[in-house]
């Protein structure tokens, strides 16, 4: 994700708009695309989206504040950059009752981070997430796009080592 930050924001937005079309119901897919490409949605991207969805045959008039209200509402979007690797812990009840408490403790100790923090070197981010829908194998953690199930606290170190 990080290597794409050098790409021109305008071209990323253009690609997203071309792919999903400039209509009201594609605003969220467009923001998803940008979030995926850049890892977060910077303010400049919102301005760019505003301009570009106005251009089509059926122009959509939307303000930056409206776009920001979307970017800040949905959990899968971020308005701030994050570390190179994002560790997410499922904090839902099914993971909680099968040992999630201990795993969360171990994660925080291993990374020296609290919920929502990024390590000073920009390598790690730690956050909790809602249910990922793989509750049969809880506790579950997500590192970038990889899901780990049946996680034990003593496995945390080995799992994270793969992303050094």
């Amino acid at each position, binding site marked *: 994700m990080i290597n794409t930050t050098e790409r021109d924001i305008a071209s990323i937005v253009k690609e997203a708009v071309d792919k999903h079309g400039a209509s009201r119901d594609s605003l969220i897919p467009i923001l998803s695309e940008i979030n995926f490409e850049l890892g977060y949605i910077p303010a400049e991207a919102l301005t760019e989206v505003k301009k570009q969805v106005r251009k089509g045959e059926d122009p959509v008039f939307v303000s930056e504040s409206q776009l920001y209200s979307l970017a*800040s*509402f949905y959990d899968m979007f*971020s308005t701030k950059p994050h570390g190179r690797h994002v560790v997410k812990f499922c904090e*839902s*009840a099914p993971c909680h009752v099968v040992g999630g408490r201990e795993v969360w403790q171990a994660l925080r100790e291993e990374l020296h981070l609290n919920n929502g923090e990024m390590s000073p070197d920009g390598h790690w981010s730690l956050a909790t997430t809602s249910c990922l829908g793989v*509750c049969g194998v*809880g506790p579950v953690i997500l590192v970038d796009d990889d899901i780990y199930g049946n996680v034990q606290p003593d496995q945390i170190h080995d799992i994270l080592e793969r992303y050094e």
Partner: protein
Amino acid sequence: MKTIRYMVLVSDDQESINRGSRDVLRRFQSELKGFNLEKEVALNTLTDIGRHDAIPMVVIYPEAVVYGPITPEDVHLLVEEHLFKGHIVNELLAPARELTGPIAWVRARKGTIPAEQRIVLERVGIIDPESINDYIIHNGYEALGKVLTSMTPAQVMNELEQSGLQGRGGAGFPTGRKWKFVAGVPSTKKYVICNADESEPGTFKDRIILEGDPHSILEAMAIAGYAVGADEGYLYVRGEYALAQKRLVRAIQRAHDFGLLGKSIFNTGFNFEIHVHTGAGAYICGEETALIESIEGKRGEPRSRPPYPTTHGLWGKPTLVNNVETLANIPAIIRNGPVWYRKFGTPNSPGTKVYTIMGNVNQTGVIEVPMGITLREVINIYAKGMKNNVSLRMAQTGGSSGSITPASLQDTPMDFESFKRAGVSLGSGALLICDENNCIVDLVKTLLEFFRFESCGKCTPCRIGTQRAYEIVTRIYQGAGKMGDLDELQSLIGILDQLSNCGLGQTAVVPIRDMLKHFRATVEAHITLGVCPSGICPMTNLDQMDFQDQTADKQTIPA
């Protein structure tokens, strides 16, 4: 090692105790020892099932035979004849004609173990989900063909109404009736939406269907479109389900290639298009009006109702919103007819239900069983018993917005009717089984943390109420609770339930209500004795609480 062959339940409600049920229980203990059956017979207590004519009552599984009233003197005969020799003792049976309540349905099955019955998951794991040919070979698109070529929309809806299918998203609203509402609104443009924003923690049944049998949903949506008069459908899939999205997009493409979606399907002049719309991570978008807002490119904040989506839905047009599991039932109902469908489940809740099992059991996973199975059966048969033989403390049925069911209610049949009577919600079918090593306060705190976070913030009662409830329960969790906190919680229940704009605030109170209703003694022990009976809550008794850590900015990290 000997295996458990029988389970004996002795009624243990107050009335039974007054009439000597504890003596019956004690006699069972000694008689089982006498016959050397202790390892083969599990002995447990049973809550009030409304048979005051036959208490003290004894129920023996797996046959679900009900004996009563039973005196301690009868116990020897029961143990010798039923448990040792295997004969039912007819003269001690409870009067059959009055057999009502939870066990009646179990008994009607005459002791057979409820087998898995796959209607919704019929093809899951059997066909290649990416192959439309596989789907067609397994009766795929047959129902759509039948509907388009030989049935009127009214006939389709009548069949559906007769089948008694109820919405599987949690509310249990009759599907046929909902379709008729939408069909009855005159409009040139209508929409069908499949709600696949399955964000209820512990629920992943829809994911299994979407990933394993995507065409069944497309077929059902097209049938729905024909019935209600819509030509466009949206599949709202939650953002986290990347594989399901990929397969659905591919399935739509293939269906177009085969002429099963698009213009003039089966040359009948009926057109239907389906778009996949991806969510971006918001629990509230499972609420149908929030989902519609989200498709329209807005924040997923629920609308005030009425008007309902059936008249004013997507872009202000009449819109049918159905859950994935509901839709997955429809092709099978059309193919086999409503009479066939009514063979499964209970009279009031026909059909099957997909359950997801998780928690402290030996085997987690997904099952599809007829409506009306009991929790005890699910745990003992499908989940292969409790992990490490620790006994059941409570189960949460239906995800975070579901009920917390105490162990004493595990013989209630799980169908919409019986559960409603028992004051329990069946919800989405998630079954989170918690053993004695869990504490109600800790569980409720986790749930409230979830609601507090997921509250969309549009209406004040929910935005602030969930936060306050979370703070109070956290206080109890940390050993700093006061008895007055319980009154405070009680009043929050009323506020959230009555004043919230949508289902989120209304269901956020369910865990609190169940905690106070079924587990009050445990909660009071935290407050008055300063102990957590399960040894889970930290009880550090600090005045300073760690809210700082918990209330971190919602917008911190992207996916």
